[in-house]
């Protein structure tokens, strides 16, 4: 699990900073658009209080702006599945502890477990979910390869695998099988489709490096 998946430094909001920023929001300032900045400012001022109550946020999901009302503890996963209208239920809840990768989304291109990422941490970030992979009816090369290679059975883990591997292949379409395995090492498939997942990712990568897709 990378640091960013734990919502650590790489996500731009430190744990300390988040608590400080929480104080700003609770103090009555509308927390829209600059949660992270306010958090850092609050930290500099030594202001320590906790965030509570309802917070209005704007999330950028699959290129759309989504206004949502969350609580400080609301996870990005819950915001996507329960707060966004219409609900984006492609991202799945399975373990709710960051163990299984079913809730993986891309945040500024990096895979994160949305079940251990707070919605407030996602503000100002570009979020991509499984619903944002296809271009209209045109599947992404990886989605297409998943279908061709039968890289899914019940399908419940599939969105998470697609997001982890999209994150990998968009950076390095020529990823080796070891890199592919390592990119989805945090994803659990209980039906046991792994061999087909690796084959699909390999073939999608080949297509992508020939310029056959984004």
């Amino acid at each position, binding site marked *: 699990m990378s640091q960013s998946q734990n919502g650590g430094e790489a996500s731009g909001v430190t744990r300390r900073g988040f608590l400080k920023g929480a104080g700003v929001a609770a103090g009555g300032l509308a927390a829209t658009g600059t949660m992270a900045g306010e958090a850092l400012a609050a930290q500099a001022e030594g202001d320590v209080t906790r965030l509570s109550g309802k917070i209005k946020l704007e999330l950028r999901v699959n290129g759309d702006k989504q206004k949502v009302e969350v609580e400080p503890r609301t996870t990005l996963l819950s915001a996507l599945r329960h707060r966004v209208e219409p609900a984006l*239920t492609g991202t*799945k809840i399975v373990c709710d502890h960051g*163990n299984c990768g079913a809730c993986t989304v891309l945040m500024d291109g990096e895979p994160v477990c949305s079940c251990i990422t707070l919605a407030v941490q996602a503000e100002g970030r570009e979020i991509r979910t499984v619903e944002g992979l296809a271009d209209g009816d045109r599947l992404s090369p990886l989605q297409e390869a998943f279908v061709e290679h039968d890289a*899914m*059975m*019940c*399908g419940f883990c599939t*969105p998470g695998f697609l997001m982890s591997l999209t994150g990998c292949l968009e950076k390095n379409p020529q990823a080796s099988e070891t890199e592919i*395995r390592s990119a989805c*090492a945090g994803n659990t498939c209980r039906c046991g489709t792994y061999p087909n997942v690796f084959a699909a990712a390999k073939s999608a990568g080949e297509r992508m490096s020939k310029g056959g897709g984004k």
Partner: protein
Amino acid sequence: MSTFKPGWKPRSEMGVLNKPHPRVDGPAKVTGKARYAHDIRMPGMLYARLLCCPHPSAVAKLDFAPAMAVEGVIDAIALEPSETRFLGQPVAAVAAESPEAAEDGLRAIKVEWEHLDWALTPEQAEAEDAPQLSTRGPNARTARESGDLEATRAALESADFVVESTYRIPVQHHVCLETHGHVIDFDGENATVYASSQAVFAVRAEVADALGLPVDKVHVRVDYMGGGFGSKFGIGVEGAAACELAKRNKRPIHLMLTRRDEFLMAGNRSGAKKTLKGGATKDGKFIALETVTHRHGGFGAGSNSPQPYIYNVETFHTLDRFVLTNTDAGRAMRAPGHPQASFAIESMVDELAYGMGFDPVEFRIRNLEDPVYHRQLKRVAQEIGWYEHPNRTSSAPVNGGLNVGIGFGLSVWGGGGNPSRVRATTRIEADGSVSITNGVQDLGTGSRTLLTLIVAEEFNLQPKQVTARIGHSDMGASVGSGGSVTTASISPAIKDSAENAKRAFFERLAPIMEREADQLMMGPGGEVRAVDDATRKLSWREACSILGADAIEETGSGRPELAGNGVHGVQGARVEVDTQTGRYRVKKMVCVQDCGLPLNHKTIKSQMNGGMVGTLSFGMLEERLLDPWLGTAMNADLENYKVAHSMEIPEMVSIIDEDDTRQQVIGMAEPTGIPGHSAIANAIYNACGVRLHTMPFTPDKVLMGLLENA
């Protein structure tokens, strides 16, 4: 009209079946459009959660007032009985405006637990001072006994070589990625139920009962479901609680278990302790086996397939007992009872073979009458590299380096169906569109795809020209998906409906074609033509256009001759053991599986991969851990309950046994999930001489074995 009921075409003439096809719902699954019960959203819907008892046995005194004071909490109910009999048994449910509020509500319930005596482990349950857990009898009971004990002991006396070993198999979990649960939308007269279920029609009956409705007012939908593996047949406590909340609140209820609930109360595969005493003669004949099994099925009897399992042992005796504990009852899981039986007998067979200096493949062949196993064993042995392997009659010498080992295991299963319980309907419309409808659920096995393939074959169409409608109790009757019966149950009925539709279609076309209906046939690409004159033909679209608004709609059922029963299966594993640390990797697994007529090679091979991955995970990693002193669960989460991930997956070779020429469809999912872990244990022995009697095969056990042997 025998020409219309010809059965399956010869394999060589098939244009669609007996080939690989991607699943038709693949695009829905890769775009997030596939909606599972978890994903249902409705105006006014409440989210419900269960309060599970954190103790093995207690009486709950519940005060809901603090919970009802939580913002967003709408209702809280006590569940019967208040006296719990297993760790994790639900005692209350809360419904709220959001999942978070429901969790707040649960935490706010004031509970006084009055502790009752308990026994969490089989050892505790069998202790002299153990509380009696059931009024129906003692904690440890005999489930069945078979064979001749005296003759078995006499045969063991006469054997040239005898091995006695005790094998321990832990309780394992299904770990369905979609937890159990339902959305119940009840308006007082009708109920629509979105279920994560393996049995659409069983859910309908149970919900009708819970809501006090006639079954025809209950409409169950299972469009997609996120894994069942044997654990999702009824509505369970969670479904009953959701019904009660729906009745009380007149709002849709979304009640899906949390991951922790899922581990504690949504079933498991029963564990076992099995003591086997086996004897063989010096010419390699396995002549006698005495077995004592203790099943560990929590508050249930557990499951066990009796010994000598697949092997032909002349004289045997089995005593099969179960031990009750204050844990969740075991449920069916991927070939109930078989993986446990497999580990014990395949290990025993290997212990006998190596003990007498036999090649374990040769020893198996000498003790299996069914020639199908002989051919499958040889095929697997070849694919896994057995014949080039240097250590075929003893384990490899240990010198501190990396050692390669190979092992084997066998399966057996029925896989037959109940086609007479299935009604499928084929429709042909004037615009050429074709649909096939049956209420069956698709667990991810590919049943939705199968419907389209069978109909496409009948009319020489492309599979994508056929739409499958499934997963709804308002559709034609179907079976629950357990015992790998689905394929053998639905395929004959689907074929029958397609044949009936073809016949009805030909009867309608007969006057235009100036031929009798039985003188018409399907040509390539769905064209309809005269049997005696290939130029007298209509394209599919032309032919369909004569239907007008009066579409063809024909139902089919039965046709048991199109399905068969009885499959085998052999698997091999190749491992590499680090003989300094005990760590090992499974490098390759091979599965050869028969299944009668293979309808869709792609989904069949996916099942084989899945079976091997499941048993690999079971063998290497999985074990439910309880704290016998505190009475708590130690790994009821996916952090500490380990399952296989990408890094554990070896090279996998899945081979459909095409020497099985039966022109009958047979289910093949479960046998592939039986022997993989047994093959891995045998491969570890072959690599380094460490015989593992206790699952899972963690590196510390291998290391301890290496130290003992050193």
